[in-house]
């Protein structure tokens, strides 16, 4: 039976470091994959994930438990990501560039499907990532937290630090922009 986050945090603060290791193991993939979508780079996502956990460890005593640990962690990650992003020049975004940048080898979740289908899926995913990368950062973050993390508007508002109405607006605008960018893709018959 896995322990609740708060219990692991308490243990960690008492000096049981392995408890924090459990927290890392619990959230590492979730955080990492969301950051891949937000940052568009597996390398950056890896670095930021690592940095976020290290920072969280170092600041653990400041965690008040007012929000979920993951929300708090994600806020730290967003700050780390923003810091890292500012250090790098903005990358030109294209579908190909995004594919190369991300280094993602998409997994065909339908192994029985034909090869052409796999290729189409890969292209679709790449197109989505590229379109996502073109969104304004605040729109992208809000949408990714909604779509990939399935967070509520309230959770998103807490993480990004803006009013609920702003979250609603950002998500809608992000969807509208994506819809426009991916219009041809959306017209294709849906088989996913």
């Amino acid at each position: 039976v896995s322990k609740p986050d708060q219990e692991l945090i308490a243990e960690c603060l008492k000096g049981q470091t392995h408890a924090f290791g459990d927290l890392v193991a619990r959230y590492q993939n979730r955080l990492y994959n969301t950051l891949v979508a937000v940052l568009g780079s597996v390398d950056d996502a890896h670095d930021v994930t690592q940095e976020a956990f290290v920072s969280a460890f170092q600041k653990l005593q400041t965690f008040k438990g007012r929000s979920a640990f993951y929300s708090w962690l994600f806020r730290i990650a967003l700050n780390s990501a923003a810091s890292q992003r500012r250090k790098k020049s903005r990358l030109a975004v294209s579908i190909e560039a995004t594919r190369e940048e991300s280094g993602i080898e998409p997994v065909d979740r339908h192994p029985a499907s034909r090869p052409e289908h796999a290729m189409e899926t890969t292209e679709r995913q790449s197109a989505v990532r590229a379109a996502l990368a073109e969104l304004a950062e605040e729109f992208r973050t809000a949408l990714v937290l909604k779509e990939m993390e399935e967070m509520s508007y309230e959770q998103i508002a807490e993480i990004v630090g803006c009013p609920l109405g702003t979250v609603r607006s950002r998500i809608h605008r992000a969807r509208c922009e994506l819809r426009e960018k991916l219009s041809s893709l959306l017209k294709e018959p849906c088989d996913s």
Partner: protein
Amino acid sequence: MKEPFSEEILSAYLDGEISPDERARVERRLERDPRAREQVEDFRRLSQIFAGLPRTELPASFAGEVLQLAERRMLIPEGSVRPARGRASRWVLGAAASMAAAAALLLIIQAIAPDHNGPAIADRGGFPRPMQNGRDAAAPDIAKGSDGAFFDREGAGTRPSTTAAGEPAAAPVVSGVGGFGGRGGLPGLSDGTNESHETDPRLAEFGEKIQEINDSEDPENIVSAVTVYVVDRAEGLVLLQRSLEASNVQPEGERERSEKEKADTIYVVAEPEQIITAFSKMLDREHPELRVEVEAPIKVATLDRQTQQKFDDLMRDLSGPHAAARELEKADIKRRNKADDGENEKPVVEPRKGAAKPEGAGELKSQAKSAKSSEDRRESSNPREQAAQSQDAPADAKNESEGMRGPAGAATGRQFVGRAPPELEQRDQTARKNSGDSRRSAETGKSAARDASDRAKDQQPLAGNRLAARSPLVRVLIRVASDSPPAPDRPAATKSAP
């Protein structure tokens, strides 16, 4: 009747983030509006595409890497730091090395260090652990180094971290080399990581602002204003830009500013420690053209050369070879300092008997006292004496802290030396003395540069520890002002820059 309808509600409808009334309204709309239906359908398909995006799993070793990196960040063993990924390590090491000189400066004014509520240091595999007697037994033995007194002082007397029975304190904390800095857990910068602004009064106010920012947990953060006075505007701007860039703090253009603001300000967004590092470097390099001021009441100044020389002389005196005479003085000074504590500030530092009291020593006595205290602790090999010093330390620190931070400190125009050499001179002197060479070298000041690499090595734990924590970004507006006629309460020394 036509219902008011915002398209945003369609997204909220899809996400189940609307009230029953709104839901009914959307559904009525969808029944009669094919465009709305199409939009919702597209949004739904987008969600499906997101759901189909591939997910990657990090290796099982990731958690271990994180813990290792966290541990290294806190401990930074000398000479060997290689976090799991190169980028982070390069940053840490590079910054650690660059901070070494600034760290030396901090030792001069160590008495400014506020009461420490900092973290427990951890041994291998268990870093956030409670401390014992205010100091972790397994902490790296950095206190034995030349800077030991500083750590010793901070670590020994002032941190409430365990009860007498060895029970953990209410708020066990996680990092720090048993040392300086953190004022009761300044998030991100505390925990022994922010010695710069905690010990450097020039950055203390700035550090407090950053603490407020962090405490607020406001991701939008706050714009703090720092004024950099420049003697020559063009040259000062270039120096400022370079100083910031050297710490990877890049000017930003995101904030809306008026034309006048654009002409008079530099807007930067970076991690607090980066900004503090930039200012530390700026001060450490002692550009005569730059003077940093972090709002009232702290006034920051570089010293003019004459005053600097006096200070250097004083420091040389204090670190001279007449140890026996100084031993006699110590008791006297301590006694007087205690008396002064009762009278509120004005710590006393007397030069060695027989040495001429340098002019201007009065206004520098706080630093001198700090330095002397540091030296006293370093040189003392008597455990009883060390204990006595440790007991004195908190009161000293408090006294100094209040004096430096408060308006009174500003009003008296206290000045602080923006460079490392005096402390390094002490080291040089001590080294010479130990090797039987008590000759005072006229080259003492220059030896600082020669020993730069040694310094970096010596102080790597200190610098590295400072960089151990990351914090939210801080948006700082740096005002650039011409340093023409000084304000009445501004130290006169600031004007004398060449």
